[in-house]
């Protein structure tokens, strides 16, 4: 009985670990979608209201739930006080690296060039850059979602096998 319970615990632990990994990956895909959405909202706000970036960052920070997207816009809004000492581009890049490194180098590489054009005098260029960045991030999210499907099956299969093997060994 004890061995059976031990085996069941090991099996559960393996499942739990696999679930945890998959949950993290699913969450990162959700963050990517939120990031892409926020860039499109930024673009719309620029086109329609031509509001200052500070105000827009604050609105976006308040709109999104706790996570890297909210953290990014919140920190960026706070860092605008350092303009003059640092260029906007430097502030944008630094904050993107701080907040989105966990989502992968690819995401940071997509975001960083936006700092070079955002806040400039040419609105069209900024809107186009935001739209393109949003599309690339959505594409990245789709790629990860497809990979996640296969990984899900593999993870469950492997964890089942490993757990089963350990259970048999114990028994």
């Amino acid at each position, binding site marked *: 009985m004890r061995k059976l319970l031990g085996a069941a615990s090991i099996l559960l632990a393996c499942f739990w670990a696999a679930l945890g990994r998959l949950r993290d990956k699913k969450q990162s895909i959700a963050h990517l979608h939120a990031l892409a959405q926020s860039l499109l909202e930024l673009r719309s706000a*620029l086109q329609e209201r*031509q*509001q*200052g*970036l*500070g105000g827009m960052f604050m609105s976006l920070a308040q709109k999104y739930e706790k996570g890297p997207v909210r953290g990014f816009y919140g920190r960026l809004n706070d860092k*605008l006080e350092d*303009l*003059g*000492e640092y*260029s*906007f581009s430097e502030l944008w890049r630094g904050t993107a690296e701080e907040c989105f490194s966990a989502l992968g180098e690819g995401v940071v590489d997509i975001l960083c060039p936006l700092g070079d054009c*955002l*806040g*400039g*005098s*040419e*609105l069209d260029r*900024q809107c186009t850059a935001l739209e393109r960045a949003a599309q690339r991030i959505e594409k990245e999210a789709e790629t990860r979602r497809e990979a996640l499907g296969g990984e899900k099956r593999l993870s469950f299969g492997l964890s089942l096998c490993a757990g089963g093997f350990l259970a048999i060994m114990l028994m």
Partner: protein
Amino acid sequence: MDPFFSAVELLPRRYETAFRAQAAFVPEEIRLRVGQPPSLLYGEREHFLAVDGIKEEDLVRVLEKATGASLYSAAEAMRQGYFCVGALRIGICGRATVGGAGRGFASYSSLCIRLAREHRGICAAAADRLCEGRYANTLIVAPPGGGKTTALRELIRTLSDRGRRMGVIDERGELSGGVFDLGRCSDVITGTDKLSGALLLLRSMSPQIIAADEISAPQDLLAVEEIYGCGVGLLASAHAADREDLMRRSAYRVLIEKEIFTRLLVIRRGGGKRSYELEAIA
């Protein structure tokens, strides 16, 4: 806060000490030119600071700081050469984008930060005369940097506080700046061209006098003609040294020949001081 310190906050940190040491001179302008040290305008000439030269990225950072990294929000004003941030008027020079300066700047070569200050009482004598009897349409003239906007602002405030309902067309927010007192009987419209502003004020605010700064473009002159004949007084400013200078330009000559303006407030500079002389044109 004196506008000088507001301006210093926009500048690169490495210049802060040098600039603050100059505060006692009460500068009128700060000039930043690529490759040159920054300079301050006071005592009718520029004084260069003993610091390293300005780089283009310094100008970009000043503009970013002034607009909160939102140059596009001031793009329309920038295309016409300057924009206002509170009591600061920031003039821009550089390489215009394809399509001419009217489309903005591809790169920047110099900035001129003009520091607007209130000078109460400078136009009290002129205001006394304008308040005697019926108001006479007045044009304030001086060369660039001569103090027209300061005088206009003070005249608006004085006339307003003496009970005249003033309608103020503050196209770029320079007159009010969000900080200046334009008087208790003033209604201010900002962010619109002079013609639209004039029509709106006439329709909705029943002003006794409409005031506007720097009438120069053809649309501005249309606005003036629109206001004239509506039973509303006019108070405006224009670039010119004196009456003779004004008459050399056909647009202003027409305004004077039609007796749209019958008074000139001429600002003259001498010995580090300005004088304000109200003259009858007719």
